[in-house]
C-alpha cells in the first residue's frame, strides 16, 4: 500500500483561555483521504483542538495559542496567513445545523458569492454537485428556491455540508455533526462521509463511540487537554495501548 500523505501536521499545540490551559502540547498529524475521529469526555479539549485547525479560536477573546499547525507544510498561524482563504480550504460543520435564512440554493452558493462568483452556470453546477455529494440532491432538487429553514434537521445538516463542499475544501472539520439528529439521519450523514473520504480529508469530533468505530480510519483520544492515544481505529477499539483509552471506550470511566 502506498504510504499515506500527510495533509495537516500539528506539533506542541498549547492553547490557553486566559490562564486556563485547555490544550497541553498536542502532536497530531492527519493523512489525506482519511476520516479521523477525535473522542474524549466533555471538556477534554477535542473541540478546542478541532477549532485550532482552521483558526476558529481566533474569534474567542483571551485565547493564546502556541506551537505549530501546518496545512500542506504551510504554518497556518504565520502572520501572512489569509484566514478567509484558510477557512475555504479547511471547512467546518457544526453540531447544530445552521442554515442561513435564505433558500437552499443561496445557502449552498454562499461561499462562492462571497468569493465573487457571478456566472449562473457555474453556480448552478456547484449547487447540483455539492448537494449530490452531500446525498440530499434527490430530496431537494425540486425545492431549491424554498427556504432552507423549512427542511428537517437532518436535511439542514446535509445542506450545511453541501455549503462547505461548494467552496471545494481540502479538509472538512465536523464538530459532533450528528448529535442533534435522529439515528436515520445520522446514518445518512455517516454513509455520506464514507463516500466523501475519497475526495476529502475528514476530521470529526464525536461523542458517539459507535460513530467513531464505524466510520473512522484513525481515532484520537483526548483527556484533560492531553492527547492520550492516537492509532488506527481497529487498534483503538480492539486493543488500545492506554488504560485510560480502554476505560473511556468501554464506558468504565470515572
Amino acid at each position, binding site marked *: 500500500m502506498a504510504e499515506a500523505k500527510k495533509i495537516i501536521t500539528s506539533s506542541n499545540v498549547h492553547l490557553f483561555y486566559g490562564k486556563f490551559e485547555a490544550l497541553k502540547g498536542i502532536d497530531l498529524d492527519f493523512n489525506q483521504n482519511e476520516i479521523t475521529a477525535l473522542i474524549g469526555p466533555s471538556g477534554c479539549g477535542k473541540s478546542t483542538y478541532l477549532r485550532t485547525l482552521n483558526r476558529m479560536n481566533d474569534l474567542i477573546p483571551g485565547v493564546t495559542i502556541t506551537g505549530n499547525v501546518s496545512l500542506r507544510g504551510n504554518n497556518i498561524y504565520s502572520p501572512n496567513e489569509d484566514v478567509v482563504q484558510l477557512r475555504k480550504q479547511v471547512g467546518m460543520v457544526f453540531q447544530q445545523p445552521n442554515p442561513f435564512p435564505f433558500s437552499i440554493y443561496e445557502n449552498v452558493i454562499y461561499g462562492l458569492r462571497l468569493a465573487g462568483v457571478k456566472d449562473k452556470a457555474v453556480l448552478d453546477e456547484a449547487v447540483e454537485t455539492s448537494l449530490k455529494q452531500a446525498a440530499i440532491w434527490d430530496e431537494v432538487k425540486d425545492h431549491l428556491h424554498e427556504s432552507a429553514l423549512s427542511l428537517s434537521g437532518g436535511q439542514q445538516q446535509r445542506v450545511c455540508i453541501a455549503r462547505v463542499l461548494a467552496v471545494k475544501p481540502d479538509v472538512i472539520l465536523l464538530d459532533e455533526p450528528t448529535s442533534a439528529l435522529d439515528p436515520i439521519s445520522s*446514518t445518512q450523514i*455517516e*454513509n455520506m462521509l*464514507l463516500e466523501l473520504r475519497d475526495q476529502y480529508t475528514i476530521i470529526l469530533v464525536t461523542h458517539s463511540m*459507535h460513530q467513531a*468505530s*464505524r*466510520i473512522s480510519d484513525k481515532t484520537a483520544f483526548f483527556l484533560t487537554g492531553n492527547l492520550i492515544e492516537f492509532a488506527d*481505529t*481497529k487498534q483503538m*477499539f*480492539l486493543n488500545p495501548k492506554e488504560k485510560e483509552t480502554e476505560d473511556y471506550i468501554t464506558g468504565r470511566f470515572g
Partner: protein
Amino acid sequence: MRRLFVDELNDLHVRFSEMGMMVNEAIYKSVKAFINHDKALAREVIHEDKHINEREVDLEKRSFELIALQQPVTTDLRVIVTVMKASSDLERMGDHAVSIAKSTIRVKGETRVPQIEEDIAGMAEAVKEMVEQVLDAYVKEDSARARKIALEDHGINDFSSRIYKECIRQMQDNPETVIGSMDYMLVSSYLERIGDYVTNICEWIVYLKTGKITELNSNAIEDKF
C-alpha cells in the same frame, strides 16, 4: 443500513463458504487417498490443512473486528456468531480429514479388506454429500433443510456401526487384518465425527434463522441412554 458494514458482512459470508469448499475438498481427497492407497494425495491433504487453519483465524479476526467496530445487533450479530462458531466446526472437520490422510500413510502395505473399504467409500460419499448440502443450506439460510440434513446423520452412524462390527469379525477371523482394521475403525470414526460437525453447523443455521439454540440429534436420544 450502513454500506461498509453490509459489504464486510457479505465478504465474511463469501470467505466462510470458501472455507467450506476447502474443507469439503480435503475430506474428498483424504478418503480418495485412503481408498486408492495414494500416499502422495494424502500428503497433499496434510499440507493444505494449514490454509484451512489460516482461514479460520482470518474469519475470527474479521468477526472480532466487526463486533468491536460495528456493534451489530439482532440478525447481524447472529450472522457473525454463526460464522465464528461454524468456522471452528469446519476447522475440526479439516483436522479429521488430516487424520484420515495420516491413516492412509500408515496403512499402506498392511493386509486389506476390500469389503470394508467399500463400506468406507460409501460412508465417505454420504458424508461428503452432507457437507455439500449443509454449505448450500448455509448460503440459502434454509433452516428447514438444515434440520433435514441433520437427520441424515443417522445414516452415517449406521455405516459406522456396520463397519465396526465387520472390523471386529475380520480381526477375529484373521489376525493379519488387525492393524488394517484398526485403521478402518479410526477412519470410520473420523467420518462419523465429521457427520457430527455437520449437525453442529445445521444447529447454527437454525440459530441464524430463528435465534434459538437447538440441539439436533442429541446423542443421548440416539443411543437410547
